[in-house]
């Protein structure tokens, strides 16, 4: 077996990238920098967070990133997920997530045994055997190999084996390294989507349509790549101008608007995806595809003229892949969670597409007005995020907008660049609501957090499953963070559900208070 020595080239640069000047963000982002006030703000948003930001010990609990299998196999209906790991991984999937194997399982473990670890068996032959069996039993359109910590440690060259094997068995293989050494919980989806982005067809037809000689475009692509590599500010402006001028010069009759395609990335239940699509359609923007799509064969075509926008804050690696490998242009926006986030998200996309959004402000207002009662209930109450699914910043921003006080935002990993839009909106919201910027704690330490919780006594703690019952037993009201991962919280339409999640534990307590015998907290301390 060939040992893959260059591990994570992309990943390394990405994690280190927080030190790269903020303006690099705008290079890869959009050509429409000066279109409105909103996007000229963009440069300032990439500046570091003005509130307190710290990094703790990292002794915290969260789910293993392979858990993404549980929702992705449902989303991509013709897929098969093969998790290549140990018994520890398998038991996690079946037990902690409560995922049961039903009639037609579309995921399985390739359980590594002692002979695999000690390299007595040939990895390629073994994987081929299993994949042939999967092909025979399920005949999926794609097999997704989920690499785990173990495959990292034994340096199994999954990326090296996949192309040969997929040619041999005739089913495409996507390799994602959703391991706990590098990633937390929801980032598992990020690794899968980043890998899947490589498998999307190329958007070449469009280039021909606009009569742009392929050779020229190739040169240009090369230029873009070079400039991205050198990544200096003035280089950036050059790319931006060359890009915009090129689309205008190339084919004047076709308007700028039609040239641009929009692909959204992040997995959402079809219903929610439809709702977001509808919001954009109202503004005259058509979504040409989703990554992932419900069927592998429907993966969107990607290329230079494709604008991409994420719907979840944990998809930073996918964003990088789309920009660097597929030359897509990333629209960096806050995330469509809560009416405020959704509005900002739609607005940002509109800006990039040169459209003045209509009716958005009223739409946001109506949603807020409709929910006045629920919002009044949570207004003034305090909340503490222990950190679990990387949705924390967006949720905190929404709850602050609802009038809650956020004591701490724990988060497993913070990509300040990808979350720049969200962080800016958080700051803006804090200023608007006249509350101090909450402290953000990356890689928190659960032990210290619990000490802080005991001291601060927040009205609500949003926490992983391991701490919920013990905190409740100490008189602290909790909500599982995983619920926000799985519940439908995106878009305008689902604001009520989102609020419901937050207020239910508080209402429960209020209901119990009416009964003397139940109102005693089980304070253990």
């Amino acid at each position, binding site marked *: 077996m060939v040992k893959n020595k260059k591990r994570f080239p992309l990943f390394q640069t990405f994690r280190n990238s927080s030190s790269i000047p903020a303006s690099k963000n705008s290079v890869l982002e959009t050509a429409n920098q000066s279109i409105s006030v909103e996007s000229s703000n963009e440069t300032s948003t990439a500046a570091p967070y003005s509130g307190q930001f710290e990094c703790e010990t990292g002794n915290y609990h969260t789910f293993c*990133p392979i858990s993404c299998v549980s929702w992705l196999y449902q989303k991509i209906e013709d897929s098969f997920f093969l998790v290549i790991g140990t018994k520890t991984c398998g*038991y996690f999937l079946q037990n902690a997530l409560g995922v049961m194997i039903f009639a037609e399982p579309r995921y399985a473990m390739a359980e590594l045994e002692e002979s695999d670890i000690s390299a007595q068996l040939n990895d390629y032959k073994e994987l081929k055997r299993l994949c042939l069996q999967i092909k025979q039993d399920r005949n999926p359109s794609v097999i997704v190999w989920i690499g785990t910590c173990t495959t990292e440690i034994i340096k199994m060259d999954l990326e090296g084996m996949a192309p040969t094997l997929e040619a041999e068995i005739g089913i495409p293989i996507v390799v994602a390294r959703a391991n706990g050494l*590098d990633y937390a919980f929801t980032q598992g989806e990020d690794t899968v989507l980043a890998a899947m982005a490589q498998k999307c067809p190329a958007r070449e037809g469009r280039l021909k349509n606009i009569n742009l000689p392929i050779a020229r475009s190739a040169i240009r692509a090369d230029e873009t790549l070079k400039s991205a590599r050198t990544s200096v500010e003035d280089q950036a402006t050059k790319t931006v101008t060359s890009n915009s001028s090129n689309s205008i010069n190339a084919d004047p009759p076709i308007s700028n608007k039609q040239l641009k395609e929009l692909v959204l990335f992040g997995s959402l239940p079809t219903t929610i995806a*439809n709702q977001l699509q*509808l919001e954009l359609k109202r503004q005259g923007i058509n979504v040409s595809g989703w990554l992932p799509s419900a069927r592998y064969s429907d993966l969107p075509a990607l290329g230079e003229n494709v604008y991409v926008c994420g719907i979840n804050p944990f998809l930073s690696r996918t964003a990088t892949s789309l920009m660097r490998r597929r030359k897509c242009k990333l629209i960096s926006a806050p995330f469509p969670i809560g009416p405020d986030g959704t509005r900002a998200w739609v607005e940002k996309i509109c800006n990039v597409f040169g459209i003045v959004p209509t009716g958005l402000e009223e739409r946001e207002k109506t949603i807020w007005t409709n929910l006045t009662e629920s919002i009044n209930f949570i207004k003034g109450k305090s909340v503490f995020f222990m950190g679990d699914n990387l949705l924390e910043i967006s949720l905190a921003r929404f709850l602050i907008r609802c009038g809650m006080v956020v004591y701490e935002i724990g988060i497993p990993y913070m990509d300040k660049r990808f979350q720049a839009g969200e962080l800016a909106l958080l700051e803006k919201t804090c200023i608007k609501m006249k509350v101090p910027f909450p402290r953000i704690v990356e890689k928190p330490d659960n032990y210290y957090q619990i000490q802080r919780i005991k001291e601060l006594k927040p009205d609500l703690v949003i926490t992983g499953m391991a701490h919920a019952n013990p905190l409740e037993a100490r008189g602290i009201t909790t909500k599982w963070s995983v619920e926000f991962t799985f519940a439908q919280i995106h878009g305008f*339409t689902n*604001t009520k559900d989102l609020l419901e999640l937050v207020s239910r534990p508080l209402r429960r307590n209020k209901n119990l208070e009416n009964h003397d015998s139940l109102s005693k907290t089980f304070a*253990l301390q």
Partner: protein
Amino acid sequence: MKLAYWMYAGPAHIGTLRVASSFKNVHAIMHAPLGDDYFNVMRSMLERERDFTPVTASIVDRHVLARGSQEKVVENIQRKDKEESPDLILLTPTCTSSILQEDLQNFVNRASNESSSDVLLADVNHYRVNELQAADRTLEQIVRFYIEKAKKDESLTTIKTEKPSANIIGMFTLGFHNQHDCKELKRLLSDLGITVNEIIPEGGFVTQLKNLPKAWFNIVPYREVGLMTASYLEKEHNMPYTSITPMGIVDTSSFIREISSICHKVYEAGSLTNLPTLDVEVRDKMKDLKILNKKDVESFIDQQTTFVSQAAWFSRSIDCQNLTGKKTVVFGDATHAACMTKILVREMGINVVCAGTYCKHDADWFREQVSGFCDQVLITDDHSQIGDIISQIEPAAIFGTQMERHVGKRLDIPCGVISAPVHIQNFPLGFRPFLGYEGTNQISDLVYNSFGLGMEDHLLEIFNGHDNKEVITRSYSSENELQWNKEASAELSRVPGFVRAKVKRNTEKYARDQKTPIITLEVMYAAKEAVAA
């Protein structure tokens, strides 16, 4: 490599952590990557545990991978020592981190020099043993460590208690109905005049382990965990033990008879077994103790069987008659599957076509136990194999694990869950033991309820069944002046079944209010937003 969809027994570190977190004031440190500490979730969620699970992961990340753990593990051990001052800190790797081949023993040695707690490395091969074997091994390791420690500082108590006493070994967290079984077992022993000396590991302190040899004998209720400890104590301290599981009427009686005979032997051997030297009068009085008196023991068994347990009567009742000869399949851990097979056959006259276990390491014992009670024995940890056998045999009921319950659901065969792997349903709030005389009642209930209803199918037909009336679908719009377009109908069909009718009603109500005759996706979403008001 093995294509695996489901596991009956978990990985080794789960067993180790179950033992560690069952003891009081013991902290476990996992040397593991992020996410491998899901044991905390299992314990907190399944058992609704009120305390924080005393398990901390010392995270293995990319840096550790590149440069080794260096000070990280040692620092985490020392930190926990200061924060929680536990009696014992147990270090364990997982399948993943054990490949790193770091010298964890060295970390343990270094850490124990500077911490007030004892520090141990769980000595388990993570690729060769499963959860149950690892638990068995870890429990023995901890017991051995503390007995030897006590021997060294001469604090070991080897003089027996005056009255008959027993240790219960193998009750622990995330066990299948262990809490209830433990309570029932304690009651049974106290009825027999036997005091409970120590219960390990659940709720015990490691500092009390030096008192283990005080008991007259040991009880290992489940053979999956505890046998190693019991045989260590037998070898080192000449302590007899029983591994009969008091499950079902017949086995509960043999359990009582066996402990009676053990007590008798201990009593007779007197000074050999380290009984305190008592004057003749006291010794003579002890002879009258129920457990040392054969006649009393028999009358106790008789009394319990006839009056406390309703199971014997159930076996004679007309309900159970209808179960005679019905085909069943039994599958579970060795203890529960073997006991259940014997109960079904011996005590209820039910036909067990196939009995099986996933405890491959205990196959010989299992075969011996069920031979003569069933037609077929299956030893496998592959759920599809047992699934195939079930669909082949088409039994009237299954007694198995959660997995067989799923198989049963698919094939429309009822299933009573009798064994781990545990599920939140195995932690009922009410008292549901499987052991002892109360356990026999529970098992009879489970069996009876599992077989549809007591009545024969043909009787159901005669009486026209139970709920044979079809539910009339509640539809708000009978006139149906509203039309759903294609996209909206598709969207509606995606709404989960249990709320679909409600969504439909709300949407149509909204459409009617808005006077929109055609329901589109937009109308649907707007309706949802309106309901939010």
